[in-house]
């Protein structure tokens, strides 16, 4: 019996053309992630973890192979539809948070929803609800640039969840955080996981290894999957 997979990566390769020549970021990667699984992608920088995440998010297209998310071939989607897919079904937490510095915390959180036909009041409601879950609602009107690192992290998480996506992707989420905030983040992660989301975290932070609620650790090196641990 075949289980339904949330994310399937089938023989995916990604080659970048740079000024210095071609760079093979991923080579024949195969991966299958089940719904509600929490998967850690671990490996040194340059191992292709970030690229893999961006392919799952349909931010880029693979050079060969395909990416199937919830039975949809997202690697084949034209730009417009890829964007729609992203904003409705993916929540992404970036390494550098990537908040828009001149917008307020609240505005940052509901930015993904702006192009949808949602009224202003509903936008604020949704945003505030998520922000309260992560205790950041009290900073709603402050400009993102004025927030502390930990506060920005929480805004970034809230933004990733405001559209209630089934899949959450995080790229080195603790790279810019101290130990205390990193542990806090892990706490958030557990909470999100309990809500039934599928989560993929790319990281080389050892705090993530050997966590009890992680289902699988996938090790990557030089663009290939080199090991799996449950």
């Amino acid at each position, binding site marked *: 019996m075949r289980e339904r997979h949330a994310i399937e990566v089938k023989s995916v390769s990604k080659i970048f053309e740079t000024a210095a020549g071609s760079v093979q970021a991923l080579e024949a990667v195969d991966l299958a992630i089940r719904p509600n699984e929490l998967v850690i992608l671990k490996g040194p920088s340059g191992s292709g973890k970030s690229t893999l995440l961006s392919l799952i998010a349909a931010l880029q*297209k693979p*050079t060969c192979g395909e990416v199937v998310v919830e039975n949809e071939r997202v690697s084949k*989607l*034209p*730009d*417009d*539809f890829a964007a729609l897919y992203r904003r409705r079904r993916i929540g992404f937490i970036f390494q550098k948070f990537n908040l828009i510095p001149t917008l307020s915390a609240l505005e940052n959180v509901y930015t993904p929803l702006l192009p949808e036909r949602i009224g202003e009041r509903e936008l604020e409601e949704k945003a505030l609800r998520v922000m309260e879950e992560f205790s950041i609602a009290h900073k709603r009107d402050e400009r993102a640039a004025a927030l502390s690192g930990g506060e920005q992290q929480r805004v970034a998480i809230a933004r990733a969840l405001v559209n209630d996506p089934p899949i959450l992707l995080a790229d080195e989420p603790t790279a810019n955080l101290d130990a205390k905030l990193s542990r806090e983040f892990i706490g958030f992660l557990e909470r999100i996981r309990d809500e039934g989301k599928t989560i993929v975290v790319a990281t080389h932070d050892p705090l993530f290894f050997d966590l009890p609620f992680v289902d699988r650790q996938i090790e990557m090196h030089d663009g290939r999957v080199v090991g799996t641990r449950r």
Partner: protein
Amino acid sequence: MNLLSPGVVVLQMLDALLLFLASIALILSVSIARKWDPDATTPQQYRLEKRSYLVATVVAYIFYLKLLLFLYFIHTLDDLAALLPGAMCAAGVTDATPYGTPLFVVKILDLYLFGLWLVLHRIDTKRVDRPYTRTKFRLYLLLFPFLVLETILQFLHFGAIDPHRIVSCCGTLFSAPKTPLIGLFTTLPAPAVAGLFYLLYAAILLAWLRRSPTATAISNLLFIPVAVLSLITLFSTYIYQMPHHHCPFCLLQADYGYVGYLLYTALFGGTFFGLAAWVAEKCGDGRVRRWMVWSVALDTLYVAVVSFHPIAYYLENGVWL
């Protein structure tokens, strides 16, 4: 150009601008029409995808600006009437050169063409597989010459207007038309004209009730010339309450409550959506029903407003004109 009125300068300048933008879009369209391959993941395909956005943006810009400009165009013609001996309104100015009437026809045609292109574009981009992209850009290649034609005609028309030549006023223009077809229409007795008009309207209603977009499109298409001609020969006389005032431009003036704007907007909107519905059906898009409703609604509005005047006149005076 012996006519340097500011309105004309602005119109010519904007026409040149639109032609320039449209030419850019043309060059891009050629490459897209030739090399579009939705299954390809090459950088070339990505470039084409990006370019298709630009073409669509340009066409949208041209269309909406033209809509606005059309009214200003008529107004400028009206203004020029003060300069031309004999002309009392835009009709005389249009007739001042042999290019005037064709210019009008092409201008209106362009509005329909560009608008319908945008409709096709909307339908195309809603579908993942973008089935009509190639067709879309091929069609643009057909559209472009009409814009060129319009620009040339406008340039020739304004260039040829001679403030020293006497021009007929609308009173004579519309009573003694030159082409035999229109002449046939104007010599028809009033009940025949009205009959044809309402018959077509009934066809539109029937097409809607039968949910047939093809019938809607055909009846709307026929409705355009019939409505215009019946307006000129019959209904306008009731709006003016004068049996020999047929001018389609004087309706736009304040004396008649600017009713012309309402009429022409409703007529354009109704017929446009009727044609758009047919396009939607051909492409299997879901908006067929909605557009057919809008089409019927606007057409009905037109018919209602235009019918109001003769009926009111009759009720007031007990006789027809």
